[in-house]
């Protein structure tokens, strides 16, 4: 068994044995999708270009996936920090440990995206489910990596959670199109392109190439930033001979 496999298995076991994690994966998304959809239906006078309930449900689906993935990314690092330090002293490579955390994050994101999309599809016609799922997973991973970054650079439960809540809420509100904001800042927010891609996949059945490229580029930049931040904060931590 490789070190990566051993660490991934251990992290996955720890993850699924925490009921709070399971609640975030399976309970939080349905609630958010429903609340967003029903809340937006109360404002039919908004000029959103399509049914307000659908706009709300789409925004809620992306927010639920991204926020849960962000929290998982954050607490993947924070909750096991002390144990990880000891494991590194025992001989684990820092890169192996980070990679195992990312594997767990990806798996959890796939699950929460599937749950969220299933809930959305119960009340909304999804034109291209495969593309929509891909866009949703990309949005989730974007925030998952942001959670990893925050957990690395601000390793405190309360402060890290507040940063994530503030960023995700503001990002969701601005990227969903509910508020007519046309600034360069809104265009570079993490959910801007994932929201555009997800909306296109749900309503039109295709994703604009520009949005797809931007989503992938954003993910790659965040992945590199998370990796380098991890090494910068903790030193090289190479494998002990």
């Amino acid at each position: 068994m490789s070190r990566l496999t051993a660490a991934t298995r251990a992290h996955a076991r720890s993850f699924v044995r925490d009921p709070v994690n399971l609640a975030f994966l399976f309970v939080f998304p349905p609630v958010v999708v429903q609340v967003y959809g029903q809340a937006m239906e109360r404002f039919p006078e908004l000029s959103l270009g399509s049914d307000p309930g659908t706009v709300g449900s789409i925004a809620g689906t992306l927010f639920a996936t991204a926020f849960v993935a962000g929290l998982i990314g954050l607490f993947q690092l924070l909750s096991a920090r002390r144990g990880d330090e000891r494991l590194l002293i025992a001989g684990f490579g820092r890169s192996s440990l980070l990679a195992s955390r990312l594997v767990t994050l990806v798996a959890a994101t796939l699950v929460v995206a599937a749950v969220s999309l299933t809930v959305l599809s119960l009340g909304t016609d999804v034109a291209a489910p495969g593309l929509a799922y891909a866009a949703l997973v990309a949005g989730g991973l974007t925030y998952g990596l942001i959670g990893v970054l925050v957990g690395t650079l601000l390793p405190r439960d309360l402060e890290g959670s507040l940063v994530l809540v503030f960023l995700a809420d503001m990002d969701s509100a601005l990227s969903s199109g509910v508020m007519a904001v046309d600034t360069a800042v809104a265009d570079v927010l993490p959910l801007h392109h994932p929201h555009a891609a997800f909306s296109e996949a749900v309503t039109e059945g295709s994703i604009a190439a520009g949005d797809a490229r931007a989503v992938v580029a954003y993910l790659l930049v965040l992945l590199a930033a998370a990796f380098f931040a991890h090494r910068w904060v903790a030193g090289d931590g190479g494998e002990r001979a």
Partner: protein
Amino acid sequence: MPNTTKESADVVLRASNLAKTYDSWLPFGRRVEVLDGAALQLEAGEIVGIVGENGSGKSTLMQILVGALEPDAGSVDVSGSVGWCPQETRLYDRLTVAETFDLFGEAYGLDDAEVGAARDDLAERLDFERFLDYQVRHLSGGNRQKVNLAVALLHDPDVLFLDEPYTGFDWDTYLAFWDLTEELVADGTAICVISHLINERQRFDRIKELREGALHDDGGEEP
């Protein structure tokens, strides 16, 4: 991380001129000078105690010796493998005891058979066999400390650092602990025990006191 270099036959650890200050970049932060010129040498087959009053920097020193913390100055050279039993258990709460051994065995580079043999031996000697299927968070403080110690011993290290190792032990486990350490010392393991209170000085080859940031020979009498 400590440098792993070839030392003379008996010296397994040489720490020189260690300095560490905790500082804050925030206004009104407190600057605390913890270590200033601390030095320690450990030889194979000896057991050394380090004492010091609360807040003297014992745990900081140990974290530097094992490589968990970078000193501001000085160096630590270690030859051979290192075992570390920290004061806080630093384990994964939702893994079982057996899974914890599997994970750390992987980190130490042991195969499954070696992990199983070492785990079963330590569990029997420290009397936590019946808890192997328990998640760490469900263990009592004393049993958690037994597992904490056993994880440090799993790979039969050449140098063993123990930070307040017998906190929470009952009397039988305390005695089993000393039996175990005497065997390890006889086999050539160098052991460094850090504690705020050392009652049985005859169990140690040397005792050093951490005072004003440096280690001094301790001339305490056997109570």
